[in-house]
C-alpha cells in the first residue's frame, strides 16, 4: 500500500509535466534530419526522443529521416542498437543530421555485479563468472538452470529428468565439497534469496556466479557453496521499447532403452529358470502363440512404450516486455508464458473432460519501476510473480515410468478382448502402464510466487563525495497447492489357463473406485531487509572503497504447519558485512571482506561467526613498461584470494535441543490379566550441543589475460578448498551407548578437501563481413573426504575417508566363471548364494580366500559429473547469425541396476534389455553350442529372482562411464532486413531455428547418459527443435 501511495504521488508529478509539454505544442519547433552511420549509410529505425519527456519520440524511416516536434532548448537523444547514443541540444535549428559512432564493447568497460554492487571487470580481485545472458537464451528449456552446463565456467550441472514441471538441473558451484546436508549454492535474485528455476530468462539483466571466498565472505555462514547473483532488467530512458518473442518447440525423447519383445522375453524367462534347474514358466507351444500373436488375452505381446508414449510433444514460449521512461521515472514491464506438453498418450474418451498427460504451464510477470524522487534520491520498486500449473496422471509420472520399465510384454494385454482392464498389483506403483497413464484420474499442482522489492538509493555526495546509502526491502510469498483427482477402473486378472471349454477364467482384482479428490499445499513467506553504505573515492593515484552492509531475513512456513510449534518458528539470519578496497594506479589491488553473520538455528553461543577474506591482485598490464612496449597486452592480471565462508544449512532444526517422546511399546508390570502395560518417556532425539556451521577455507589463484583489444581473452582459476566442521551423525558410537540410530548425537566433525580448475576463453575475429567468436569453458573439481566419523571397519579402504564424496563402491569383477573347475580353483564366493559357470567372478581384495563385503572397494567416480566443459562458436554474416555449442561431461560413472540390467531379478516384474538378448552368457546345454558360453559376455548367466544374488552385487561389471559429449545447441538466425521491417514500424525482426541436444556421443549406448538413471526408468531428457521469432518494436 505504501508503495502504491508513493507511485501515485510520483506519477502525479511526472504525468502532468508530460501533458504540459504536449499542450504547448504551438511554440514547438519541427526538427528534421537524417541519421547515418560513419559510412554515410542511413540508419533505419533509430530512436529519436526528447530527453526527460517520456513518450515523446519517433523512429527514422527507411531513408534514415526523422521528423519531430520539440520545444526549444530541449535535448534530442539519438539511440540505436550497437551504436553510442548521441545527445544534441536543440536551440532553434530545424535540421539536425547525426552521424552515429559504433559502440565499442571493450573488456575494460565491462561491468560485473558482485555482492557489494557493480564493479568494472578490470577492478575485480575475486573469482566471478559473469555469464553472457544471450547464451542462456539459446536454451529452449523453461528453466534457466538447464543452460548452465557448458556455458558457465565454475558450474557443474546435471539434468536428471525431462518431466514437464520437474525438468530442472541440479548444479554445484565448483563441484560438491561437502557430504553435509546441503551442497547447493545460495541464489540471490535482485539481492534476495529466491528461486532460480522459475525465473523468466528474458527478464535477466545479468547473471553472475561468485566462486571464491573474497566474493562470498560477505554472505558469511551461507556462502560456502558459492553464490549466484541475478539482477533483473530495469527501464532505460527513452521511447517505449517493445520486445516480443515467440517460440515453438518440437521435443522428442533423446533415447529410450530398447526392450526385448514378448517372444524373446518369454524365451529368456524360461532360460533363466531352466539354466538354474527350475521349471520353465512357458511351455514350448505357448511360446509359439506369443510369437505369432495367436492368443492376445493370455499370451499377449505388448510394446508398452508404443502404447504410452507419443512420438513428440510440443512446447511453446511467448514473451512480451516493454521498457522506457524519462529521466524522472523509468519502467520495465514483462509478461511471459511457457508451456511444455508431456509425452503420454491420452485416452480419447477421457480427453474431453480432462487431460492425463503430463504438462506444465507457467506465467511470469515483472514490473520494475525506477523513480528519481529528488536529484539525489532514487527509488526502485520491483514486483514480480509467477504462476505455474503442472498436470500429471493420477498415478503419477514415477509410477508410469516404473510400470514402463517393469511391465513385461507378455504378462497382460492392454485390455482383454472382452473389454476388461487387466491388473495385478493394483495398489502399488507396479501397474498396467496404460491404466497408470490414462485411467487413474489426474493430479494438478500449482505454485505461485509474488516477490516485491523496494530499494531506496540516497546519494550523499553533498555530505562527502563518493558516499551513498542504500536501503532495500523485500517481501515474498510462495505457495504450492495440489488437487489429486484419483479414480481406479475395475480391474481383472485372467487365470493362467483357460477352463475346460477354452474360455478365460476371470477374477476381479478390485472394484471400480469413482473419482475422489484430496488436496493440500504448503506455503512460506520471506521478509528481507538490507542497508548498505558505500564510500568510493579516488585521491590521485589512490583509489579506495568501503562498503558496509547490514542484512536480515526471515522465512516462515505459513500453512500446513501441523501441531509441532517448531514448524512456525521462522528461520532467521542476521549479518553485518563489509568490504574495503584499495588500489594504486589500478595496478596493485588489496581487498578485505568480512561477514559477521548469524543464524537462529544454533545455540546462543554459537549463533554468530566472523568470516574474513582478503584478496590481492596485480594488474601487470598497467605497469609502465607494458604500456610502453607491450601495448597489445590489454590486460594481464594475477589474482589471489583467501578466506573463510560458512554453510549453515545442516538439515536439522534446532540441533542443540532434545526431543522426548513416549515410547510406543510398554512393559507389562503385572503377571496376570495383561492390562498393566505402561510405556515410558525416552529421547527420540538427543541434544547435540555446540552445533554450528561448516567452515570452508578457500584459496583461489587466478589469471586474466586479454590481448589485441579483446581479440583473445582467457580467465583461469585454480581453487583449493578445505571444508571442516561438516555436520554429521556420529557413526562411531557403538550400540552399547544405548541410543537408537535415529537419535544418535550429531557433531561438526567431517572434513573434505576439494580442488580443481575452472576457466574460459574467447577468441574474436572479423573476416570481411564475417564476425566470428569462438568461446570455451571448463570446470573440473575433485574432492576427498579428509575426516568422517565412521564405525570401525576391517580395512582402511572400506572407510569413506580418503575417497570422494558419494564415491561409487563395489566389487572388482574378473569376468565370468568359465566352468566348474574355475569356480573350484577361485576364492570361495558364496556370500550371495551359490555360483555357477557364467556367473561373475570377483577379485579377492583382502586376500583371505573368501569374497564378501570386505572386498568392495572404491571403483569409478561419482554419479555427479566432476568435469563439465563447453566449446562453442558463433558467427555473424550480414543478416545471418549462427551459434553452435558442444557440451561435455566427464569423470562420472554409474551402476546399471534394477530389473532391466538384472533380468528377472524381481521375478516377472521388469523388462529385459534387447542388449541382453544378444550379449549374454548361455549354457551350452540350452544353446547346444559351446561358443555361447562366452566368458567375456556383457551379461552373465540368467537367473530368476534372487535379487541380492552374486551377479546383482555392485561391481565393475555393472559400472558404466557417464561421460558424454553432445551437440547441445545449434542455432541459426536470420534478421529480416531493416529497410523492409521498418515499413511495419518494426525495429528489428529475427527468425531463428535452434536444435538442442541433437547429437550425443557417449560410450554408454543404452539410453541418455546425462540423467544417469541407473535402471533406464524415469522421464528421459528431450531432443528439441525450436522455431522462434523475435520482434522489436
Amino acid at each position, binding site marked *: 500500500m505504501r508503495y502504491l501511495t508513493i507511485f501515485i504521488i510520483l506519477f502525479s508529478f511526472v504525468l502532468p509535466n508530460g501533458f504540459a509539454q504536449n499542450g504547448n505544442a504551438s511554440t514547438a519547433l519541427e526538427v528534421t534530419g537524417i541519421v547515418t552511420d560513419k559510412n554515410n549509410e542511413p540508419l533505419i529505425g533509430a530512436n529519436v526522443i526528447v530527453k526527460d519527456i517520456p513518450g515523446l519520440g519517433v523512429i527514422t524511416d527507411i531513408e534514415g529521416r526523422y521528423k519531430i516536434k520539440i520545444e526549444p532548448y530541449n535535448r534530442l537523444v539519438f539511440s540505436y542498437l550497437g551504436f553510442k547514443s548521441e545527445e544534441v541540444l536543440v536551440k532553434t535549428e530545424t535540421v539536425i543530421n547525426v552521424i552515429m559512432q559504433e559502440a565499442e564493447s571493450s573488456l575494460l568497460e565491462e561491468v560485473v555485479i558482485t555482492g557489494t554492487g557493480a564493479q568494472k571487470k578490470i577492478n575485480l580481485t575475486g573469482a566471478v563468472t559473469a555469464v553472457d545472458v544471450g547464451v542462456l537464451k539459446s536454451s529452449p528449456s523453461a528453466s534457466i538452470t538447464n543452460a548452465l552446463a557448458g556455458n558457465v565456467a565454475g558450474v557443474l550441472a546435471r539434468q536428471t529428468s525431462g518431466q514437464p514441471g520437474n525438468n530442472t538441473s541440479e548444479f554445484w558451484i565448483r563441484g560438491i565439497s561437502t557430504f553435509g546436508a546441503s551442497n547447493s549454492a545460495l541464489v540471490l535474485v535482485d539481492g534476495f534469496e529466491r528461486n532460480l528455476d522459475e525465473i523468466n530468462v528474458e527478464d535477466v539483466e545479468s547473471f553472475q556466479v561468485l566462486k571464491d571466498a573474497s566474493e562470498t565472505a560477505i554472505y558469511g555462514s551461507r556462502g560456502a557453496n558459492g553464490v549466484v547473483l541475478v539482477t533483473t532488467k530495469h527501464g532505460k530512458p527513452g521511447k517505449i521499447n517493445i520486445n516480443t518473442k515467440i517460440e515453438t518447440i518440437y521435443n522428442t525423447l533423446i533415447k529410450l532403452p530398447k526392450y526385448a519383445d514378448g517372444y524373446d522375453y518369454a524365451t529368456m524367462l524360461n532360460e533363466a529358470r531352466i539354466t538354474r534347474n527350475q521349471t520353465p514358466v512357458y511351455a514350448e507351444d505357448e511360446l*509359439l502363440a506369443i510369437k505369432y500373436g495367436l492368443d492376445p488375452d493370455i499370451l499377449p505381446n505388448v510394446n508398452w512404450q508404443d502404447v504410452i508414449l507419443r*512420438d513428440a510433444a510440443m512446447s511453446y514460449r511467448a514473451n512480451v516486455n516493454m521498457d522506457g521512461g524519462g529521466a524522472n521515472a523509468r519502467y520495465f514491464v514483462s509478461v511471459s508464458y511457457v508451456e511444455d506438453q508431456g509425452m503420454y498418450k491420452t485416452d480419447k474418451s477421457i480427453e474431453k473432460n480432462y487431460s492425463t498427460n503430463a504438462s506444465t504451464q507457467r506465467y511470469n510477470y515483472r514490473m520494475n519501476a525506477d523513480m528519481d524522487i529528488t536529484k539525489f534520491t532514487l527509488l526502485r520498486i520491483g514486483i514480480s510473480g509467477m504462476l505455474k500449473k503442472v498436470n500429471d496422471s493420477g498415478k503419477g509420472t514415477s509410477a508410469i515410468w516404473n510400470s514402463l520399465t517393469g511391465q513385461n510384454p507378455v504378462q497382460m494385454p492392454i485390455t482383454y478382448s472382452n473389454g476388461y482392464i487387466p491388473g495385478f498389483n493394483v495398489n502399488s506403483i507396479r501397474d498396467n502402464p496404460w491404466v497408470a497413464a490414462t485411467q487413474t484420474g489426474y493430479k494438478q499442482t500449482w505454485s505461485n510466487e509474488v516477490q516485491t522489492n523496494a530499494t531506496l538509493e540516497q546519494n550523499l555526495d553533498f555530505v562527502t563525495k563518493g558516499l551513498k546509502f542504500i536501503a532495500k526491502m523485500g517481501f515474498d510469498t510462495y505457495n504450492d497447492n495440489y488437487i489429486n483427482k484419483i479414480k481406479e477402473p475395475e480391474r481383472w486378472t485372467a*487365470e493362467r489357463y483357460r477352463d475346460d471349454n*477354452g474360455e478365460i477364467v476371470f477374477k476381479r482384482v478390485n472394484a471400480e473406485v469413482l473419482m475422489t479428490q484430496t488436496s493440500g499445499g504448503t506455503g512460506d513467506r520471506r521478509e528481507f531487509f538490507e542497508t548498505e553504505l558505500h564510500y568510493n573515492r579516488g585521491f590521485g593515484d589512490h583509489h579506495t572503497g568501503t562498503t558496509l552492509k547490514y542484512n536480515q531475513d526471515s522465512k516462515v512456513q505459513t500453512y500446513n504447519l501441523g501441531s509441532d510449534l517448531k514448524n512456525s518458528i521462522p528461520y532467521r539470519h542476521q549479518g553485518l558485512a563489509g568490504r574495503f578496497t584499495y588500489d594504486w594506479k589500478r595496478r596493485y589491488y588489496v581487498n578485505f571482506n568480512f561477514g559477521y553473520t548469524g543464524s537462529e538455528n544454533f545455540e546462543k553461543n554459537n549463533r554468530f561467526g566472523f568470516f574474513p577474506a582478503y584478496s590481492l591482485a596485480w594488474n601487470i598490464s598497467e605497469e609502465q613498461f607494458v604500456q610502453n612496449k607491450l601495448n597489445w597486452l590489454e590486460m594481464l592480471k594475477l589474482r589471489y584470494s583467501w578466506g573463510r565462508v560458512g554453510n549453515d544449512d545442516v538439515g536439522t532444526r534446532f540441533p542443540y535441543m532434545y526431543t522426548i517422546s513416549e515410547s510406543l511399546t510398554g512393559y507389562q508390570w503385572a503377571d496376570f490379566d495383561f492390562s498393566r502395560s505402561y510405556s515410558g518417556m525416552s529421547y527420540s532425539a538427543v541434544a547435540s550441543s555446540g552445533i554450528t556451521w561448516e567452515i570452508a577455507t578457500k584459496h583461489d589463484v587466478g589469471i586474466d589475460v586479454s590481448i589485441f583489444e579483446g581479440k583473445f581473452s582467457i580467465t583461469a582459476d585454480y581453487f583449493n578448498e578445505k571444508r571442516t566442521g561438516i555436520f554429521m551423525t556420529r557413526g562411531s558410537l557403538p550400540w552399547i551407548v544405548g541410543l537408537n540410530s535415529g537419535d544418535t548425537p550429531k557433531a561438526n566433525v567431517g572434513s573434505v578437501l576439494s580442488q580443481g580448475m575452472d576457466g574460459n576463453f574467447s577468441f574474436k575475429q572479423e573476416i570481411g563481413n564475417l564476425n566470428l567468436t569462438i568461446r570455451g569453458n571448463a570446470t573440473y573439481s575433485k574432492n576427498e573426504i579428509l575426516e568422517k566419523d565412521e564405525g570401525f571397519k576391517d580395512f582402511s579402504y572400506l572407510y569413506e575417508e580418503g575417497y570422494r564424496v558419494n564415491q561409487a563402491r563395489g566389487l572388482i569383477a574378473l569376468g565370468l566363471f568359465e566352468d566348474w573347475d574355475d569356480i573350484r580353483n577361485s576364492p570361495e564366493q558364496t556370500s550371495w548364494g551359490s555360483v555357477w559357470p557364467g556367473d561373475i567372478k570377483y577379485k579377492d581384495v583382502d586376500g583371505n580366500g573368501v569374497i564378501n563385503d570386505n572386498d568392495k572397494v572404491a571403483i569409478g567416480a561419482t554419479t555427479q559429473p566432476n568435469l563439465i566443459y563447453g566449446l562453442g562458436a558463433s558467427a555473424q554474416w550480414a543478416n545471418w547469425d549462427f551459434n553452435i555449442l558442444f557440451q561435455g561431461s566427464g569423470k562420472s560413472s554409474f551402476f546399471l541396476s534394477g530389473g532391466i540390467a538384472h533380468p528377472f531379478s524381481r521375478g516377472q516384474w521388469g523388462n529385459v534389455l534387447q542388449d541382453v538378448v544378444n550379449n549374454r552368457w548361455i549354457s551350452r546345454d540350452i544353446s547346444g553350442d559351446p561358443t555361447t558360453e562366452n566368458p567375456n559376455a556383457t551379461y552373465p548367466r540368467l537367473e530368476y529372482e534372487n535379487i541380492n544374488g552374486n551377479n546383482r552385487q555392485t561391481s565393475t561389471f555393472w559400472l558404466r562411464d557417464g561421460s558424454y559429449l553432445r551437440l547441445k545447441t545449434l542455432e541459426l538466425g536470420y534478421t529480416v532486413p531493416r529497410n523492409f521491417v521498418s515499413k*511495419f514500424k518494426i525495429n528489428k525482426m529475427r527468425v531463428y531455428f535452434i536444435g538442442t541436444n541433437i547429437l550425443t556421443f557417449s560410450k554408454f549406448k543404452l539410453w541418455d547418459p546425462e540423467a544417469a538413471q541407473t535402471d533406464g526408468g524415469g522421464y528421459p531428457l528431450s531432443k528439441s527443435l525450436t522455431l522462434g521469432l523475435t520482434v522489436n518494436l
Partner: protein
Amino acid sequence: MFRTMNKILKKKWKFICLMLSFLSMLCFSSCKDNAENNESNFDPSKPIEITDFTPKSGSAKTRLYIYGKNFGNDVSQISVKIGGLPAKVIGSNGEIIYCLVPKRAVEGTIEVTIGEDSKSVTASEIFNYQSKTVVATLAGYISPTGTKEVKDGPFEDCGFEGPRNLVIDPKNKKHIYMIDGMGLSIRLLDFETNTVSTILQRGQGNWENIRQLQFTRSADTMLIANEKDADGAIAVSLVTRENGFKKPQHLIYYRRNNTCTIHPMNGELYYNSRTTGEIVRYDWETQTSQLLYTLKNRDCQYFIFFHPSGNYAYMTVPNKKLIVKAEYDWENKTLKVANNFVGSEGVEGWRDGQGTNALLGNPMQGCFVKNERYEKEGKSDIYDFYFADQNAHCIRYLTPEGFVYTYAGRGSTGVNSDAYGYIDGDLLKEARFNQPVGIAFDEENKIFYIGDANNSRIRTIEIDE
C-alpha cells in the same frame, strides 16, 4: 527500396504468411499412431489347406496348432472340430490356427471350417488322443467379482459357502455328506439326481461350528462333531438314517471338540478338546468317557483318521503343522500315545520329504487309499494316506514309510507366483486349489472328491475318458 504499393503489399502478405505459419505451429498436436494389423482375410475363392499340426498326440486341453493356408484371421469365422467335437479356437494369423483339444476327442480327426458356407477341410493325419487323470470341477460357482451364493439345486446350478469335510455314505455310495462353510450346515451331494440339498443348518442342532461327520460301524447313525469354546458345550451329536438324518440328538458335551472318530473294528468313539489337547475315548456299552492323554499341550487342534485295518490312526494337527501317528492297543481296545510322524512342529511350509523333513501347510481331512502296487509288492500296509493340505493349497499323500508327496495342485507356474487359484487340468502341471480342506475317496469309481473351501467348489480328481 520498396516504394510501390504493390511491393509493400507483397511483403506484407509474406509477413502475414510468416505469422500465420507460427500460429499454425502453435496449434500443432502430436501425430496419431497408425499401428495397423496386417489383415490376412479368408479368400473364399481359394481352397483351405491343412499342411500340418502339432503336437500329434495329447489329452484334453492340449494346445493344438494347425498349420496351413487361407484360414483368415477372423476367429469368429473359424470352426475346428477334433474327433467330431467342437474345439475352442483362440487365435489365427491366417496360416496357423491355435485351438484347444476338447474333452473326449477320442477319434482324433481334425476338421477346419471357415465361414458360413461351411467350406471345410480335414487333416490327413489323425490326432492321437490320450486320456489322463485330471482335476475337474463337480459343482459350485463364484462370480468373477468374488461373490458366491449358497444355493441348493442341480450340480450345474448350485452354490456353496465353502465345502469342507466330506464323508461318503457307506450304505449308499451315491450320497456324499459334507460340511459347508465354517460349520454352517450339512449338505448332501446326491449323485442319483445330481443335485445338492441341505440336510441340517447349524441352528437346528444348536451347534456353533460343525467340524467332522462320521458314520458309525452300523452306518445307520451319523455322528457330528461340534466345536464351541464353552464348558459343557455340545461336542458330539448323532442323527439316524431312520429319521433321514434330520433330528439331531446330543450325545457328548465337551469344550471345543473337533473330531468324532469310530474305530473301524471295535466301534468305540474318540473325541477331543482343542483347548487342552485332551483325547477322550467313549464306550458305547458303558456309555462312559475316559480321558486318555493330552496331545501336545494347550491349543492343539486335531482330527483323527483310523487305518481301515484299525491298527493305527493318523491325527492331522493343522495348527502344529504335523501329522502324528498313534498305534492301537488291541488288548485294551484303546489308542496308544501318539508320536510325531511327518512335518516339522510349528513350521508351516510346503516341502515333500520324509518324516520331519517334510513341511506341511495346514493338514486337514485325510483318507486312506489302497495302493495296488503295494499289494503286488506284498507289503504289510497297502494304504497311502491322502490329505488336503489347506495352506499349501494341494492334495498330498503320505506313504506308510512316512514319505510325503504332492499329488495335485500348485500347478500353472507362470503369470503369478501364487500357489493357489482355481485351475482344472493336469494334476501337478496345471491344477490349482485355494485352501482345500475336505477329501473323500470313492473306491469303486476311483474318484477323489475335494472340498475346495476358498474356491467354494467341489472338485474331483478322476481319469478323463
